[in-house]
């Protein structure tokens, strides 16, 4: 008995629009952290800037469990390192990482 697999080619783009655009300030949501997430602990609750809109896809918390959920817009968000780490000494350094729409709130 094999599971149904949603292949890349069979996914349909979602109807709901991307909530954010490049340059928007966003804060990373901090949902309870159980079983699986690809939203890093170090980024939760931190505010950054949308650096790019990348693609639309299932969120990892669904795809990892073969759950056919809503397809969402993904974004690369840029943070100041000083906002991520309390002790970070260098003013100019930044970090970028990627989140689906639902993991971000307007800041």
């Amino acid at each position: 008995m094999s599971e149904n697999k949603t292949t890349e080619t069979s996914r349909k783009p979602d109807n709901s629009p991307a909530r954010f655009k490049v340059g928007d300030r966003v804060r990373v949501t901090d949902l309870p952290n159980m079983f699986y997430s690809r939203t890093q602990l170090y980024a939760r609750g931190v505010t950054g800037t949308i650096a790019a809109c990348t693609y639309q896809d299932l969120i990892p918390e669904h795809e990892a469990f073969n759950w056919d959920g809503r397809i969402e817009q993904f974004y690369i968000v840029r943070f100041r390192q000083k906002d991520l780490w309390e002790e970070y000494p260098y003013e100019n350094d930044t970090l970028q990482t990627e989140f689906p729409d639902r993991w971000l709130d307007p800041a």
Partner: protein
Amino acid sequence: MQPAIHIPQNWNYETPGPLYRAYMHPPHDVGGQPDVPVHYEEKEEEQWELNTYVTCEVLGWRGVWNACERRRRADNDLGYTLYLGMPYYGRWIWSAARMLIDKKHISLTEFLEKVAEVKSRYERK
């Protein structure tokens, strides 16, 4: 026994909030944890490691699982001890075996008998 406080007890009856959060934390999320300088080395690939990588990818190619599921199983479901203790591709092949059983492609006993048979094949040599 709880060695630190010397009270005989089977297991913890309570988990304080911060400890609960630490226990629930997905093991693969390690960014920002302290660690020490090490010699960053290369590793020559074993034949079994290449085979493992290919098997896992081909299982994805043929729709048996997807890579996101592979990562979830290999990087989280194992638990922190095995996550830190097993070789990188050891986690991959463990997850593939576990997935095949979870999804009812093979039964656990069929799997264990196959492992025993493969082992005896090589022992005879």
